[in-house]
């Protein structure tokens, strides 16, 4: 079982991620934007972070840059949820510190497979 943080301003997608992961027994905590996500990081520890990119208040890439600057999160897998992944976007995401991405639309089964791989 892993502790997972999912960050998305869309309630439906966030709950979809959270619901899917909890069927596999993971503990999921939700945040609706990057700033909320950072707050949560202060009070607990996560093994995996899944974040949307387009969000109000603090977007996903800024959020990831902040997370990577925290010593304990240097190696933590961080996945971005995105609708497109062209080479340019990929470069920006990687430079921000993303581990990988999940391309929307995803189906829950596929999400679980990806998570299983990342968590080993």
């Amino acid at each position, binding site marked *: 079982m892993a502790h997972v943080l999912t960050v998305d301003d*869309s309630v439906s997608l966030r709950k979809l991620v959270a619901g899917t992961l909890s069927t596999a027994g993971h503990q999921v905590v939700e945040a609706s934007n990057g700033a909320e996500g950072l707050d949560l990081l202060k009070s607990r520890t996560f093994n995996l972070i899944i974040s949307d990119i387009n969000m109000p208040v603090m977007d996903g890439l800024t959020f990831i840059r902040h997370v990577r600057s925290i010593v304990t999160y240097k190696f933590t897998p961080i996945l971005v949820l995105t609708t497109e992944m062209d080479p340019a976007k990929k470069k920006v995401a*990687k430079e921000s510190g993303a*581990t990988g991405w999940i391309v929307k639309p995803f189906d829950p089964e596929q999400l679980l497979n990806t998570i299983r791989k990342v968590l080993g």
Partner: protein
Amino acid sequence: MTQRLADIQQQLLATFFEEAVDALAQIESGLLALDKGKDDPQLREEQINSVFRAAHSIKGGAATFGLQPVAELAHSAETLLDRLRSGSMKPNADVTAMLLASVDALRGLVQWSSSGAKGAAPDASALRGRLDSAAEQMGQGGGYHTAPRAQPRAANDMRTRFKIDFRPKPHMLTTGNDAVRLLRELALLGEIKLEVDHGALPALADLEPTQCYLSWRLELTGSMTRAQIDEVFSWVDMDAEIVIEELRDAKPGTQPAAAARVDEPFALDGQSGSIRVSVSKLDMLMNMVGELVITQSILGELEGDGPIDVKRMASLRDGLALLARNTRALQESVMSLRSMPISTVFSRFPRLVHDLSHALGKQVELKLSGQSTEVDKTVLEKLGDPLTHLLRNSLDHGIEKPELRRERGKPEIGTLSLRAFHRGSDIVVELEDDGGGLDLPKILARARKLGLVGPDEVPSDDVIRELIFAPGFSTAEQVSDVSGRGVGMDVVRRNIKSIGGHIQMSSVTGQGTRTTLRLPLTLAIIDGQLIRVGRYTYVVPLLSILESVEVDRSRVSRLEGRHPLYRLRDDLVPIISLANLLGVAQEDTSNAALLVVVEADGERLGFAVDELLAQQQVVVKSLETNYEAVEGLAGATILGDGSIALILDVLGIARLARLARGGSAGRAA
């Protein structure tokens, strides 16, 4: 497990629909605000960004929940928005109109999907075409390609062999990608043979634990495809040097075509009449219940066999007072659960004003205030249509065209203010425009034509103003699209009255018109005065009572064929015998001891009653749902002793009284 996953998706579909509706409203108001940000690049950028974000999230969600038509249209709109965002395109009226049309179309599609996707989907292909070609003129095309969902691992009978050289760059670990994970993943594809190259490993003293010093050479044998291997490395191809070579030239087997995925939109079973309640309100409610429990325990102390002495009596009285206070607070809390901010109605108006003022060739700025004012849900539902009508009237008849405004020395842009606020136990909604005001001569001329005013009559201004509420009245020179569809102010007034409200209009020629609506906070509970007529108890809504007086018989005058009149100070008030109207045997039909003076339609009436009882709040039970509507009665309620009392509808009683005496009632006042 798969079943459970599908359930999760299904359950969240309703959430997505709610979200999409909100996002569409956000896009709409953002688009309408674009004009305002014209001179402030930073503001404008933020506006476009938030619109873009909303469109983007609709697209992502719709695609994930399998709502292809929504996703496709949202994508086209998003592409155009992206052009605006990047600055390669300037917003103008055409683009805004096109985007607004997409908001409407998306709303239609969402509606269609959420109501079970019955019948053919609304066709948005023409609109998409327009959006795409507009975007294309500005940059690369905007065709939508659904990102293919990862296909099931294609079985390949051919055995293939790959040689892979995998040299992570030192920083790879800090991207969260573990080399061991990648190797493990590769091992799932086939048989793996690997060699570690630790040549780059430094002496322990120099070893930086966050860096990756190892590389691997591996051979993979199995029935995988090159694409599958690429997928394993797709996250790290920028963080490592990867060379993949196919060793045996085996023809890749034809991959079975991925089974066509039938994207059936999920159906939602009917709309539930749900309401969103903020947590703070629920907390408040919980608090009240807590108080109630404490009060209960205070009263519980009094239980037992001890004598009822003065001390116990006093604490009983205290406890009951506390209980009354708690009940009242609890009632208010529960009522607030039923109420929603008036912004749910107001929010549709910016769009309406935008569209209408363009159609009419007028420039109008809509100012909204008091949007967070909370109103009972039932009142709110019935407020939308009358308000829309009033707004249309102001735009059509009130605010002048720019040229005329300039002539009159007013700013070209007209102002329309819509305000909501609490006043006493009422909600007040005020609509004010700075237009030409009511054109009294024109109204009078029209009224003469309709025969509402005789050719020789010269009515006062107040009376003329009142004429616009006459059935079938409209002064629009030609029936325009905007107003004058036969639904007049009479319908507006009737609608407002049906929710217990009042409408009032005042205007200054050349300066503008103000319409004031007063609405009750709730329809479910009213403050009532209990009265007795004969053997029966009735409730008169306290708000409509002006005063109650003891009848001094010398002040009663009678005229044949009219209600008797009572001289109240300098006024004459018709005495309405409730007993007669309601068909109740009164103890003394003509000389009731008490007169309850009420206001109905601006007139004063005196209800003759036998006794004034308590004043209390009563819960209104509808007669219509439990029996049938009865003229003169607003409903029924259950009193403390379990008996039933009918609630009088003051306006209805006034109407009945007028009928009973050939329309003469009330006019005398």
